């Protein structure tokens, strides 16, 4: 039985820039390391340079400056054909005039496999994505999810050193998206593939990644494990982009070692200072880490503006002196009502301080 193996290799960017024409800088001097066998996500809003970065790994764009390594090899000048990298496109880019089998076998044809070998590899690839028996169909005869899997199989069977995904789930419906992303993650883990994955969907990024690289304005804003980024965002941009965050203006009134005392209106809260000094700062609080208590108490006085029942929990928009915040509570049995007066406080862990000046 033919099996698909991985020849996973690392990817390294050294001071890579990409400039289009004379002055449009798509990627500005980034350094990046993707360890072999891991799944790294490039995450960011559109136009942040994540797709350009991916295409530079593929060899579809050539770096203007800097060097790119796959494994230990400098591939900076190699065209796509010569790099041992495959890519799954957002549009899937299945060849409409070829059957599923021909599509999956396409790359094998150019990689020096003999016919029988190529066929058994292609079959193994189709089996891996659960499409055994679909070989004779045309892409137009498949559903969106099936087309997507053909695209994955087509890239996988080449056993590339690096597998690239360009927003692979954006054309799928939500339910399928969860299923396919789990399949991708499973295959990646089972085969030990190196995968670089581009998305603008933070939930998708959190779910599949070993490491996430958040990009903004052609540069890397922060990189780290999903938990790092979620729980300790470096700045307001990352805090807001990775999951929702309430950004509350605060004043650091005292520092005690690495514990800061912050004042919000007339409420004080103690939490790690993360190297910030006294003065204005921002407190990033996830909606689920907000605490709301009826009536007045120890905290900031506020009023419920909107209350939404979403089945498993309640979502509230709350207005206080410092502005409007968004809170999620698990108590659906005795919800607050619009106009109720509440007191806001924060969970012991979760809220983090971030610098005030870096407004996004």
């Amino acid at each position, binding site marked *: 039985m033919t099996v698909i193996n991985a*020849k996973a290799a690392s990817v390294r960017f050294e001071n890579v820039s990409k400039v289009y024409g004379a002055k449009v800088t798509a990627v500005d001097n980034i350094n990046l390391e993707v360890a072999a066998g891991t799944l790294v996500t490039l995450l960011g809003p559109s136009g942040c340079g994540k797709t350009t970065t991916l295409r530079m790994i*593929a*060899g*579809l764009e*050539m770096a203007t400056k800097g060097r790119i390594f796959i494994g230990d090899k400098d591939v900076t*000048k*190699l*065209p*796509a*054909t*010569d*790099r*041992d*990298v*495959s*890519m799954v*496109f*957002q*549009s*899937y*880019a*299945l*060849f*409409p*005039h070829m059957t599923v089998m021909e599509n999956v076998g*396409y*790359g094998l*044809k*150019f*990689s*020096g496999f003999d016919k029988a070998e190529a066929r058994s590899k292609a079959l193994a690839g189709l089996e891996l994505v659960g499409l055994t028996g679909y070989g004779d169909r*045309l*892409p*137009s*005869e*498949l559903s*969106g999810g099936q*087309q997507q899997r053909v*695209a994955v199989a*087509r*890239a996988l069977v*080449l056993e590339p050193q690096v597998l*690239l995904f360009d927003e692979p789930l954006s*054309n799928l419906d939500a339910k399928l998206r969860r299923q396919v992303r789990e399949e991708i993650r499973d295959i990646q883990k089972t085969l030990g593939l190196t995968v670089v994955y581009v998305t603008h969907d933070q939930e998708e990024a959190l779910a599949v990644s070993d490491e996430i690289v958040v990009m903004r304005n052609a540069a890397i804003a922060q990189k780290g494990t999903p938990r790092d980024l979620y729980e300790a965002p470096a700045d307001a941009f990352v805090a807001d982009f990775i999951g929702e965050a309430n950004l509350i203006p605060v004043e650091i009134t005292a520092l005690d070692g690495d514990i800061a005392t912050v004042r919000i209106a007339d409420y004080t809260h103690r939490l790690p200072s993360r190297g910030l000094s006294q003065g204005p700062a921002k407190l990033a609080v996830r909606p689920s880490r907000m605490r709301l208590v009826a009536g007045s108490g120890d905290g900031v006085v506020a009023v419920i503006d909107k209350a939404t029942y979403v089945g498993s929990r309640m979502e509230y928009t709350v207005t206080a002196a410092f502005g409007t915040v968004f809170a999620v509570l698990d108590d659906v049995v005795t919800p607050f009502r619009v106009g109720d007066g509440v007191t806001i406080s924060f969970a012991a862990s979760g809220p983090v301080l971030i610098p005030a000046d870096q407004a996004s």
Partner: protein
Amino acid sequence: MRTISLERTTHPDLIFWITAGWIGYCLLPWYGVEKFWSLEWLLEGWPFDADFAPAAMLIATGQKLWLAPMVLALIAPLAVLGRRKSDPWFARVLILAGGFGFSWLVAQGLGIGLRGFNADWLTALFGPLEDRQFGMGYGAMITASAFLFLFTQGIAARGAVNGDVFVTAAIGGVIAVVTIFVFFPIAKMLLAAFATDDGGYSILGFFPKLFDYRIWGLGCLTGGRCGVAWNSLVLAIAVGVLTTLLGLAFALVLTRSGFRYKRLLRALSVLPIITPPFVIGLAIILLFGLSGTVTTSVAAFLGVETSRWIYGMPGVLIAQVLAFTPIAFLVLIGVVEGVSPSMEEAAQTLRANRWQTFRTVSWPLMRPGLANAFLLGFIESMADFGNPLVLGGNFDLLSTEIFFAIVGAQYDQSRAAILAMVLLGFTLGAFYLQRFWLGKKSYTTVTGKGDSGVHPPMPRGLAIPVYVVVALWSTFTVVVYGMILYGSVVQLWGVDDTLTFKHYITAFRIEWGENGLRWTGSAWSSFWTTILIATLAAPLTAAIGLITAYLLTRQSFAGKRAFEFGTMLSFAIPGTVIGVAYILAFNVPPIEITGTGLILVISFIFRNMPVGVRAGIASMSQLDKSLDESSLTLGANSWQTFRAVILPLLRPAILAALVYSFVRAMTAISAVIFLVSARYDMATSYIIGRVENNDYGLAIAYSTALIFVMLAAVGLLQVLVGRTRIGRRTSHAEGH
């Protein structure tokens, strides 16, 4: 595991071209040999006879020593064979060797001709040369190609176009052939615009000739006659608009209606394209001329005098629209089919009704096709020669004026050249207007996603006029062809209406003699020549056209605009001018091919290439680029991608290019009439000869036979190329 081409130390492409260079230099006859393919030269003194000797042998015997330096350029590449492509010396040596070899070959070819040095300053510099040389032959041609492709491989190794050998070679190759067979002859001819009567050159004489009232006069607004430039412009715009609209109507009926006899309609609309142009002109005279069938019956019915109204603008307009609508149709059918059904379906689900869908989605998406169709109609009309000659009367047009300036009593090369410049100005103006209109919008509609939609039928408000137009035009076409068919079987048109096959028998008699089959009909010789030339020219034209289209749409490189301009140039120039330019350029060394079949093939390739380019561009701009990119990331190189992904998806464009170039090679007249020789006579020039002898019966019979041959050929090509299976349903019946 992929082998990385940059690290290989064996280079099959390089070995191939080095070998080719050596074969061209050491084995093949360097100078042109008549009847090369009979291989008689092998027995008649090769390799020692100076007429057949390869370059190496000439030098060894002490002749043509100026060919010797090229041997350096052949030796140098051997030194880098074992090196890696990424080695800087690899690129350096190939660029130097290829560049030097090619330039030397060109320089010696242009510098030394039939009477020693071609230019006085060369004689002054080196002293008079006793020796001389003739036109280059296969040896020189193959060596030159080898130098060119060594050079492009060197450029590729330097990292141009991402180090892509196929793309750089394609760019280099197309630039070289376009320069040699388009720019060179045109430059030679335009130089003639500055020529004075005494053989010198003058700029002063140029401007009065350019602003001559015979060209730019506006007398027709006040009842007089207008200049030829205005006549041509008005006619070309009218023809461009009418052919585009008619072509679109046919394309719409074929793709967006439940019409049953689509195949019949398709065949009917393609008929005029397989007809020699003057034949439509003749048929129109038979119908609408002074004693034409329609004219006389209408005059009798209404009781008015018959008139010569058809001679002039109306006649030329009708004939050209008849002749060029199929071209617009062939361009538009691919585009109309290519509009993604899901976009139209999307519009319908967005509460657009059929008419709104058509107006806001289908029509804008067809814009590249419409612009291309108009451009082709405009240029074809500008360049057409046959119809104005037959039907123009006093209505002078640029193309005919050029012809008369050269062949007429005036024999004024410089006037011809100036008229050609005006004509070129118009066609290039149209070209840039089209670019402006299309702007930078993306018209990509075939994406990598499978598309399972169905084209919606036309809105009713559009369908009815479209049906009416198509029905009327089809009837008209049938009548015109009926006249042609009928004309070929009557004894003498308008005088003796007895039915007879004698014209066919005179032209195509076959006899059983003592030596087996004998082709005794008078037409056979030109017939077989025509078939041979057309068969050679069609695939070459399609190949060059589509490769050029691929380069223009899919690759970016320095000088792309100039490149595009160059490939379109030959199309903008009427065949008459091309014919004269070829005679001027290729009658003397270094390329001496007048009187051969080769010059006919070449003139067809470069005359018809732009159609392949346009059709290719229109279809290719509808293929999403991610298809190419995914093929590249899957390890196919750009040649493999071109062959396995692009070509199969371009079948309609390939078919259009093949059909068009084959048919044009069989029906063209304007350039051909200058280039034919006794040995290589073409069907059209033979027919024109018969027309001049008032032998209309034979002329029409031969034309009819040609039409049937081309019909068969078109059908055969359609079967050979086949349909692209991309799984789009075409029927409206399903699911309704």
